[in-house]
């Protein structure tokens, strides 16, 4: 780990100021991706802006037909929130199956979504539910947020403050974990609700994406059988020692099927 300056602001405004003042600053919340990268010297920020002291970025609340979850809310809190469990059980289920207990006790919604690791869980839920990202300066639709591997629409001095999840009629999540890292090798988050029928695929490609053929099939027939015959093209999918693109393509269909079955 290289030396860096450390700041712990107590408001979003102060955090934005700190980030704006230093082009090489990094925001950190749970630190589950950033700290290992720092320890491996793969990242060399001049300063870290620790968001964990910003009270306004915490908590789960219901507003009308949506859940608004603060960016600093930890996976364990989402998994065990009565509000989330009753409104979007698939989201609580997803949070309960991120990493292991230690990860869930530290990792945050905002950290996972802004990092946009292709093998992370949360981006699938955000895209699969058609959520809206609330930042320090604007609101961004999920469809416009995830731009590519580890890349989002967030600007350098823009902080993800909360995510607004519309409450669906049905939603389900299924994933195959990489046997070594236990990150997602291929996953599917499906929903039917105010944002239509959505199928978001994570783990399989460089960035979470919507599987439109499956969405069309589910729109006319919401059933696992409807997606069972749909083959995901293997082109452009990830390939590594644990799963070829072809295997991942197969898993996309299997996980979509399971996600629909879980959604009921």
């Amino acid at each position, binding site marked *: *780990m*290289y030396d860096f300056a450390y700041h712990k602001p107590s408001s979003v405004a102060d955090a934005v100021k700190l980030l704006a003042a230093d082009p090489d600053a990094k925001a950190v919340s749970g630190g589950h991706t950033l700290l290992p990268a720092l320890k*491996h*010297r793969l990242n060399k920020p001049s300063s870290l802006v620790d968001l964990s002291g910003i009270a306004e970025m915490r908590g789960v609340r219901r507003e009308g037909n949506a859940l608004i979850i603060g960016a600093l809310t930890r996976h364990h809190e989402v998994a065990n929130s009565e509000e989330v469990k009753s409104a979007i059980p698939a989201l609580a289920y997803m949070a309960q199956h991120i990493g292991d207990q230690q990860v869930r006790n530290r990792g945050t919604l905002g950290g996972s979504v802004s990092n946009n690791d292709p093998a992370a869980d949360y981006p699938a839920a955000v895209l699969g539910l058609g959520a809206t990202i609330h930042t320090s300066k604007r609101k961004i639709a999920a469809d416009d947020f995830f731009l590519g591997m580890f890349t989002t629409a967030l600007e350098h001095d823009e902080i993800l403050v909360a995510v607004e999840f519309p409450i669906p009629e049905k939603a389900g999540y299924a994933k*195959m974990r990489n*046997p*070594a*890292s236990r*990150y997602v090798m291929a996953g599917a988050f499906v929903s039917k609700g105010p944002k239509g029928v959505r199928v978001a695929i994570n783990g399989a490609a460089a960035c979470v994406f919507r599987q439109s053929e499956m969405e069309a099939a589910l729109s006319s027939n919401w059933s696992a059988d409807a997606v069972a015959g749909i083959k995901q093209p293997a082109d452009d999918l990830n390939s*590594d*020692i*644990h*799963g*070829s693109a*072809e*295997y991942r393509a*197969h*898993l996309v269909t*299997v996980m979509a099927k399971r996600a629909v079955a879980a959604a009921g």
Partner: protein
Amino acid sequence: MNVVTPFEGIGASVKRKEDLRFLSGRGQYTDDINRPGQAHAYILRSPHAHARIKGVDTAAAAAMPGVAAIYTSADLAAIGGIPCGWQIHNKDGTPMAEPKHPVLAEGKVRHVGDPVAVVVAETRQQARDAAEHIHVDYEVLPASVTMAQAQAPGAPAVHDDNPSNLCYDWHIGDKAATDAAFAAAAHTVVFETTNNRLVPNAMEPRAAIGDYDTTTGEHTLYTTSQNPHVIRLLMGAFVLQIPESKLRVVAPDVGGGFGSKIYHYAEEAIVTWAAAKLGRPVKWTADRSESFMSDAHGRDHISRAELALDAEGKFLGLRVHTQANMGAYLSTFAPCVPTYLYATLLAGVYSTPAIYAEVKAVFTNTVPVDAYRGAGRPEATYLLERLVDVAAKQTGFDKVELRRRNFIPTDAFPYQTPVALQYDSGDYFSTLEQALETAGWATFEQRRAEAKARGRLRGIGISTYLEACGIAPSAVVGSLGARAGLYEVGTIRVHPTGSVTVLTGTHSHGQGHETTFAQLIADKLGVSIANVDIVHGDTAKIPFGMGTYGSRSLAVGGSAMDKAMDKIIAKGKRIAAHLMEASVEDVEFERGTFRVAGTDKTKSLTDISLAAYVPHNYPIDEIEPGLEETAFYDPKNFTYPGGCHIAEVEIEIETGEVRMVNFTAVDDVGRVINPMIVEGQVQGGVAQGIGQALLEGCVYDSHGQLISASMMDYTMPRADDLAPVSVATHTTLCTHNPLGVKGCGEVGAIGSPPAVINAVVDALRDYDISHVEMPATQEKIWSIIHGKR
């Protein structure tokens, strides 16, 4: 005074004495030790598999804050290379190729992770910062990454003076007799396989601290070692030329070894040498990434095996050709692993009359390979137990019956195999029947049908294995190329008021010696285990012993203690005879009490020890004061644990995922001292065996970059990858050591991989395959089920 205590002797499942320390975070590991004024070393390692070093510029790094020194191979010109502890001879009688293994790379780097330079600085961070400013001018060379590449004509030479990349071409057994057996066979079966390379991954990374006393000239090395005396001998005599009297090696609490901490590593020599050079302690601790590319790896064989059977299924002959990867340099015991710890095991539990095996050891541009839990024996067992299943399938014999038909009969011991070993005892029929019963072998088809209804393929697999451990008779191993003796030593120090300290040359790094050895003392001398302390791991405290590996600590080290206790008892009887005014021949001893036979006259061990240290009324002219005895024990033979492992798996048809659903182990480990510790040892070994079979695989890319270089990509088994492991023992006693013990540390890792793969292949019986290579990953299985290969 006799105190009634719960039985703590041989056979009692007492809780481990060391666990309070370990479980409460109060172990004292090498990295927990900090010496006054200590500096920190960082090792700059090669990023290339094979490259010529055209120059190393350290000037910028030397000017960095906190840097005390930077060393490259030029600074180490006066010290020796890292020695190899075993010399194999080729078929033609010539010695193996033994290229120099420099402490720091000289002229070339030969694997990713090869140490190139050392930075010593005030802090570890500063040392690492400075290392980033060392400029190494590499000319990258093509690499021989696989054994096939290394043996191809014109292959890049790992060592310039050995263009063939061959370390040795060795054989064992009777070729003519084996060929004749094949000529007469009714059936011949061929099986080819790769035994996957593994990364050991002990929980505690390696660490070393060099310390030097400028006033006395004494060196101290604290290191994560399974055998401090071996390190003292190799490093002192061959690398740094330090006399034993001036070199102390301390291996404190060590968090797992599995073989990987047997060897003498470059970092030990570096910190010891640098501490003397700088006149201050120097500490190095590996991070996990360094462990992946600098700890010796395990396994990595490519083999072809052929079995000849007669019409009734009796094995007539076995022919094996194996290539074994040595990596870039010879690690301490690497040459013996695929020879005397492998090919000598190819008889297994079977009475095959003719066996011939050839082994080629090959250098490649990869991390050195050496012994890893089981060391050669898992490779032999896997080859043989898969071959028997393949033979059963091909010939139509039932796989259990085929095994039974070829078992060495229980009344045939001692049994001389055609590959050098003589088994002293065993009962393979009983361990088989007990395992079949426990695993519900007879009712398996019902479970398979039930699983099929759930969309899963269920399979059951068996392995009837044998291993040779308790290493080893010194004269025998010496004749086979060992450059060391493999006896063990124990000192029993009975203190004046009757408590006992045991000094042992073995080393505990997870095995529970502090408990098991104390139980030996409790059983024989009648001293509560609370009053027995086991001292190990410090050459300044213990006599010269050989350490812990090859499941030897109890069979060899425990036997030394037993011999030393015999001496204590013999001396005690003489003292007791004096005190009770009896003839020494009339004094009996049992668990702490000396008694004049046929009388109620007794003396306790404490009475005797007090008399020995306070010799007021004492035959001082005939018996020396004190009650402390040392015994060295050189075993007469290896010990031969064996048994039966049965694995049951389920495969998810849709995804190819393999789940362990049940595992049964019935092992003959000889006399059991602590059943709970044996159960834990077997379960741990089985976990590693399941890891090898289903999960673990070390992967290099075509350039020799280590792809599986972290826990993100290398699949270590987790608890949820395993299944309930039922462990039972069926004992036949070892006939040649005083305790009747055989060893339990490696049986789990040896017996289990073929049982698991046999189960996977059985689960896939409806598909047209005869084998699945390890690790049987989900994509491999999915490809088979979905006709992709």
